[in-house]
């Protein structure tokens, strides 16, 4: 999809949310009618530690403009330790992506509890804003996926 200059840029954003906290936080944002742009699409995973870096790179390859991973707050993981592993994995992955020249703001991790509908909505609004300012992901996308 070519972005015409005058057309508003609508990013593709993938949000991986853990089932126990962040997905519930997103539901709470919904039931509290706390809006955020439709650009965000959520994929439910059992835990942030289920998010394989390959999923993130895959999203970028297929044309995602931003990827955000949400999990329980450290210490609150439903599986006790999952988010601690996720934190290390994502820290290293994000650092490497930055190192190969991917704009830093395209990836993000946020800890959102089931009670934090407000935070979920605010985080998504903020993230979408950031991705809009960064524009289309052209560094990681596979050109074959454009239509």
């Amino acid at each position, binding site marked *: 999809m070519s972005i015409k200059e005058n057309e508003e840029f609508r990013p*593709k954003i*993938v949000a991986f949310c853990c089932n*126990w*906290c962040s*997905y*519930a936080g*997103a*539901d*709470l*944002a*919904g*039931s509290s*009618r*706390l*809006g*955020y742009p*439709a650009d965000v*699409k*959520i*994929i*439910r*995973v*059992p*835990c942030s*530690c*289920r*998010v*394989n*870096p*390959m*999923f993130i790179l*895959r*999203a970028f390859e*297929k*044309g*995602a403009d931003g990827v955000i991973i949400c999990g*329980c707050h450290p*210490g*609150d*993981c*439903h*599986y*006790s*330790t*999952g988010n601690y*592993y996720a934190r290390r*994995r994502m820290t290293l992955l994000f650092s490497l992506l930055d190192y190969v020249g991917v704009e830093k703001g395209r990836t993000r991790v946020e800890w959102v*509890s*089931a*009670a*934090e509908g407000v935070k979920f*909505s605010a985080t998504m609004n903020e993230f979408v804003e950031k991705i809009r300012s960064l524009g289309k992901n052209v560094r990681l996308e596979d050109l074959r*996926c454009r239509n």
Partner: protein
Amino acid sequence: MQRIGVFVCHCGSNIAATVDVKKVVELIKLEPGVVHAEDYQYMCSEAGQEKIAVAIREKGLTGIVVCSCSPRMHEATFRKAAEKAGINPYMVEIANIREQCSWIHKDMEEATKKAVILARAAVAKVNLNAPLKPGESLVTKRALVIGGGIAGIQTALDIADAGYEVDIVEKTPSIGGRMSQLDKTFPTLDCSACILTPKMVDAAAHEKINIYTYSEVEKVSGFVGDFTVDIRKKARYVDMDKCTGCGVCQEKCPSKKAPSEFNRGLNKRSAIYTPFAQAIPNVPVIDADYCVKLKTGKCGLCEKVCQAGAIDYTQKDEIITQKYGAIVVATGFDVIKLDKYDEYAYSQSKDVITSLELERIMNAAGPTKGHLERLSDGKAPKNIVFIQCVGSRCSDNRGKSYCSKICCMYTAKHAMLIRDKYPDVNVTVFYIDVRTPGKNFDEFYRRAVEEYGVNYIKGQVGKVLPQPDGQLLVQGVDLIDNKQIKMEADMVVLAAAIEPESSVRKIATMLTASIDTNNFLTEAHPKLRPVESPTAGVFLSGVCQGPKDIPETVAQAGAAAVKVVGLLAKDKLLTNPCTAKPDELLCNGCSTCANVCPYGAISYEDKLINDHGIRETRRVASVNSALCQGCGACTVACPSGCMDLQGFSNRQIIAEVDAICR
């Protein structure tokens, strides 16, 4: 390729008002694998579920996508419906087009577009779903209640009455909790001890209830139906079996400088003590921080005077390991620290007290034997000012954003009791709002104003200034008359906010139960599952879940007990089939997965493998599906992709990613 049916729910107008459901149906029909799509008013209704069953029968569906509310609402409903119609329940996926679409978007075109994408992702996933079968695990018919306050006691009694073993773990030397510290209770003005003590006795006497006081939960492992808990029984230095509770040791103890926790530090207690007269068990503990014998080796007076020979200075902490099927958290609350509220001079004047301290002062067993007097000089106060919402409903980060719920009522109670007993004392209450929803609550408050002449001022107090003469100058605003108020008082009572007991964080972490930003435990659903934690097998009772008064606490305690009983009544539980599963042909035997498994569910075995004709003995991973809880940590740790998670497989998640990004 699956034969997929897609069912789009209107949810009345909840979805249909924002998402063009007809359009979703029309577009999703174009997806590979989709052989049927329809929309309906309420998919979760019986008629809606029947539509799924009919389509399964008539179209030979092998996979189902329901575009509706959150899977956290109705995934189980639709899985059951599918199962009834003859297909595996795990062939159902939900596209969340309500909470995560129609409710948060306003523009119909945009919301519809998103709903289609979410539906596509679900279809892409279902295409790769495989039938799964839950395993079974046994239920240990015993419950643990953490906290021995009114919530814990009531829960334990109700579970025990249903015939199941219950252990109460209480960290202080006696059960009773906050309620035992209260003097009277609203709105009936019953004596708190009079209604609590019988329950404490019932609990202690119940053959199914086992009480561990002066004990704490140390470690929790396992899962619903099969928790293993380590309980630390702290050294009491008094033999529970021998002690007769005569109390002589407490009288004779020479060390009487320890602040009394029960009386909120307003007076002192001995090093060997029971917190209060009606304590259960009526067995004292020795406070090692104050005991001369334990600190210096000298003294030993209590041992000498104890006729039962119950004193044992060599006692050590003891760890008890016990299995439970269910765990109830009833850890209760405390009042917040007031160090961020210097303007009320709490730390400067002894005559600025919290409401809980006032309870002790009013109580006959309290530090002043129930006489209302100033702690600074023992004089009877003439003017008392109550300040509401100290730290509650706070917009800055000094206090709590929530309403503590009980303060309006107990303040009315205090004001009424004071005016009743000491009619010459002027009582003024500064409030933001008076909140009295509840049976007979507003009537109670109005009696305080109308019958007892309590002076309610809508307004906030800016400052309490201690004067050289010992008086307190209260500066505030009257918002109704819109004027500054300055008044002298000789006692100021602060309605300090309540917050969850500080140890709850640690306990929540051990239980992997989620907690909100205010440290209240999160319920599985705020309306429909208010006494369950999202963590299966963990239940919530009392203020640990949110502020509530005694009747609400007791009601919730009973509700939690019913949930526990419902669980313990089962012999077996079905386990989550979404567990990790290794592909032996790809396994390197490297142990990386086992290193991150929080449940010790992965082990290794040397196994003869036939890899496309190459036969060799290899070290390969195997997953104990009864222990695996399906977090997926191993799947990412595994470099070869050998370890995958059923129900959330690599290819399924990638299919969702692809569907969203295309």
